[in-house]
């Protein structure tokens, strides 16, 4: 890292999008100041750095803000090319495939999993769950294609898609524990199941991924709050 490179991450520890950025910084070996935001009382700095969305994560590099998790991850890769491994191949076609699957994780997996949690009706939620498992099945095929027999979507080492999906791991693991249903099922999606374990063991991942039990506690608290709010609004 060049002298005078100041990296500050505005985040919230449970957010999978924040975790993605932490993973990228971690894998690249970059040190940064972690600023924990209270999303119920957003800081001036957050609101002025991300006026369009007012969301975390925001990465400030020498004071200049970058927003949107996958934009930030690509920025980290491009601004620090000399530092640590590349998150994208140098081959244009492989890069395009990685970008395709990174977009897929957001469009299909995140969307369906959010629906399975926040769907307004039980029907909505179970539709979300169904689509989530369909998306995971597709990602199993993607991993087979992209890994070329190696351990990661990036091949021998982690890449853009590993970071994109890796950001979700703690949430998915917590969901698994709470529902009792395997999300990374070793029978249905053996490659993904192996990937999840392998990824979690990486030093870089250990630094960035929230603790599963802490995640479960957080989700349970959120659900209790939502239930209380729903009950209160019915009185």
């Amino acid at each position, binding site marked *: 890292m060049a002298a005078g490179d100041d990296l500050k991450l505005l985040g919230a520890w449970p957010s999978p999008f924040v975790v993605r950025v932490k993973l990228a910084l971690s894998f690249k070996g970059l040190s940064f100041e972690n600023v924990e935001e209270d999303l119920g009382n957003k800081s001036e700095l957050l609101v002025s750095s991300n006026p369009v969305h007012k969301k975390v994560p925001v990465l400030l590099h020498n004071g200049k803000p970058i927003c949107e998790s996958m934009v930030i991850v690509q920025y980290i890769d491009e601004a620090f090319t000399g530092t640590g491994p590349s998150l994208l191949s140098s081959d244009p076609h492989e890069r395009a495939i990685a*970008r395709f699957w990174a977009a897929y994780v957001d469009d299909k997996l995140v969307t369906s999993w959010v629906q399975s949690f926040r769907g307004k009706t039980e029907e909505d939620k179970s539709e979300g769950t169904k689509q989530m498992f369909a998306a995971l099945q597709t990602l199993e095929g993607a991993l087979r294609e992209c890994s070329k027999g190696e351990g990661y979507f990036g091949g021998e080492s982690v890449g853009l898609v590993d970071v994109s999906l890796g950001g979700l791991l703690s949430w998915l693991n917590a969901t698994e524990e709470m529902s009792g249903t395997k999300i990374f099922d070793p029978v249905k999606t053996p490659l993904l199941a192996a990937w999840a374990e392998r990824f979690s063991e990486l030093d870089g991942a250990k630094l960035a991924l929230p603790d599963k039990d802490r995640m479960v506690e957080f989700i349970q608290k959120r659900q209790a709050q939502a239930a209380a709010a729903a009950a209160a609004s019915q009185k």
Partner: protein
Amino acid sequence: MGSQGDVTVLGTVVSPFALRVRMALYLKGVSYEYLEQNVFDKGELLLASNPVHKKVPVLIHGGKPVCESVAIVQYVDEFWSGAGFASILPADPYDRAVARFWAAYVDDKLVAAVLGILRAATEEERDEKVEAAHAVVAPMEEAFATCSKGKAFFSGGDSVGYLDLALGCHLFWLETLRSMFGVTIIDAGRTPQLAAWAERFLDTKAAKEVTPPTNSVEEYAGKLQAIWAAAASAK
């Protein structure tokens, strides 16, 4: 780098995402075979080339498909790069991040806003949707000032770049909304710089190269409305 190996584009003349890809190829001076698709009766090649989404656009280069317009445009930029080729994304990592941020914003918000206007059942609802579209477009006025650095385009130069293509490809649909409903989304009163940019963009060779045939967007919009109406009455 780059060679004129066989390049095929699967698209429709009305899809902004396909237009974006074709404009990118035009900027690079790359010739390609264009195959117009019928999205209501999808052909074998489309289904085989984009099995995950079954959507246009698809770029097939040397027999290998690339899907998702964001991935395709960057592929085109990276494959046909170096001396003699125009650049689509800026060189500086921060400028690239800003361009990617706003392009993601456009795809996330503007498409939904356009469809909202088209689907509105009453004039009152349409007015609401038009207001929403104005709100989507509003932050881009300042974005233009920042990105253009006093020049003609978002690229910060005198010719179009990544963000120009990302927003510009939607202008044809905005023109159609004007002819169908008399509504102006990029309005010279509210967003003067953006309105001036839009005129300049539509005047470029790249835009003129891909301008949809007269009435084609309106016809397609009509088909969508018919499908929605049929679905609504089927319930």
